[in-house]
């Protein structure tokens, strides 16, 4: 029996992938030995990120790591991937929402409809602004051309931010060539890891979401062809990727704020930032009005967040 080969493309570029996915793939390949090999490709390497979903669905690539939003998956849950404004505060919120509040089931149903296997969801870092010029008030956000996620961009546009989407690998250069004024795509760990800290000067400590939500997916036929032991191995090693990111980001966020030298921290006062949080409440309702499934997800977010507030510290402050 010949070795099974998968091509997996992540939406992250090489520098980031070194942490967020490569270790998991390496251990998968080590364990799977002669039975299977996953070949890892980076952002836009084989197909452009915009075509990622389609390419997986039609079998051009076998598996994908991405948030639903970036790859524009044709499902009802797309907007909730990446950074849905203020849906979560900590990276642990994401696995809880998926495993204990019922998002897994919804995602599974939605992706099965379009011929794709949803393997598992995990969380990454919070969404902060990294900019060339400082942001100290909402006024400062106006007119800034910022690389961000589609849905986050839609939300931020009401504050005068001009969201721009470009291939991930081009971002650093686009900041230098003036195509972008900044980035709202990650926490500070990533800013330092991928080099954005070198081309921007300021880091805004307010974030519009505490954790990125994204998933591993596979072409349905390819998935079904796997023997059970390999399915299990895929799940376990991908979970190890989720776990790696939990501590890698959490530790990095704090230590770089304290010890990092490349970016100056700025903040928008809580009072003013409250406008943004209020706007998110409205945004949630707008999205919920779009369809039943979306309403269900928003419902779950609301329930979860109110539970967390009721639970009090350390789940939620204030």
């Amino acid at each position: 029996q010949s070795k099974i080969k998968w091509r997996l493309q992540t939406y992250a570029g090489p520098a980031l992938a070194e942490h967020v996915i490569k270790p998991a793939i390496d251990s998968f390949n080590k364990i799977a030995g002669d039975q299977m090999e996953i070949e890892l490709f980076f952002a836009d390497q084989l197909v452009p990120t915009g075509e990622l979903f389609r390419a997986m669905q039609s079998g051009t690539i076998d598996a994908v790591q991405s948030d639903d939003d970036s790859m524009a998956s044709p499902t009802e849950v797309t907007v909730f991937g990446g950074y849905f404004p203020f849906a979560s505060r900590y990276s642990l919120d994401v696995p809880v929402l998926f495993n204990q509040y019922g998002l897994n089931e919804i995602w599974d149903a939605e992706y099965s409809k379009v011929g794709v296997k949803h393997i598992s969801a995990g969380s990454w870092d919070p969404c902060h602004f990294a900019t060339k010029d400082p942001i100290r008030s909402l006024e400062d956000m106006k007119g800034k051309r910022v690389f961000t996620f589609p849905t986050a961009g839609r939300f931020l546009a009401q504050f005068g931010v001009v969201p721009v989407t470009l291939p991930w690998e081009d971002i650093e250069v686009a900041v230098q060539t003036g195509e972008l004024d900044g980035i709202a795509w990650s926490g500070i760990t990533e800013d330092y890891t991928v080099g954005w800290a070198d081309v921007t000067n300021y880091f805004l400590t307010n974030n519009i979401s505490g954790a990125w939500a994204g998933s591993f997916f596979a072409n349905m036929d390819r998935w079904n062809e796997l023997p059970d032991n390999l399915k299990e191995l895929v799940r376990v090693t991908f979970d190890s990727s989720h776990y790696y990111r939990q501590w890698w980001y959490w530790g990095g966020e704090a230590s770089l704020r304290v010890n990092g030298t490349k970016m100056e921290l700025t903040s928008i006062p809580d009072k003013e930032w409250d406008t943004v949080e209020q706007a998110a409440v409205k945004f949630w309702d707008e999205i919920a009005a779009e369809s039943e499934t979306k309403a269900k997800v928003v419902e779950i977010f609301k329930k979860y967040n109110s539970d967390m507030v009721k639970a009090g510290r350390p789940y939620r402050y204030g």
Partner: protein
Amino acid sequence: MPSWTKSYIRFVDGLNRRIGRFAMYGIFALVGVLLWSSISKTFFDPSLWTLEIAQFLMVAYYIIGGPYSIQLGSNVRMDLFYGNWSDRKKACYDAVTVLMLIFFLGVLLYGGLSSMAYSFGYFGKEPIGFLFGLVIGTEELGHLERSPTAWRPYLWPIKLVMCIGFFMMLLQVSSELIKDIAKIRGEEI
């Protein structure tokens, strides 16, 4: 050569020439969008759509203009040997190797149609059948694909333009093939 070949060539070349000459003024549309982009950035709020529109324009420009560029003979060849051959010998080689080009364009078009079917919300394995059904009304539109940007334009129009371009390119290349065959047979077209 049969007489239909003549009319075929006249038709294809004429149509592509017209389309190409229309496309070539696209350069000014492109300049306009980019200038507006810098103006709006300097004096007002930057526009959301400029970069994407410019990208669509550029793609349309070179794909729709492609057949005309073939007519103009501007597509370079490695003419280390080719350059020294007689016209007839050139035609002989071209008539064979152009099959590679046709094959390339055919697969490009197939990929384009499949991607276009996807942009109309079809997720199955027979994109051509679906598109055909869409035209004759036995299939329905599904989830319309939108660009994953904040502006979120629908993507089917640009994909449609690209498919048309690839198709016209195929026609143009087939017209070149007929011309080569005529040349080999020593006939004037």
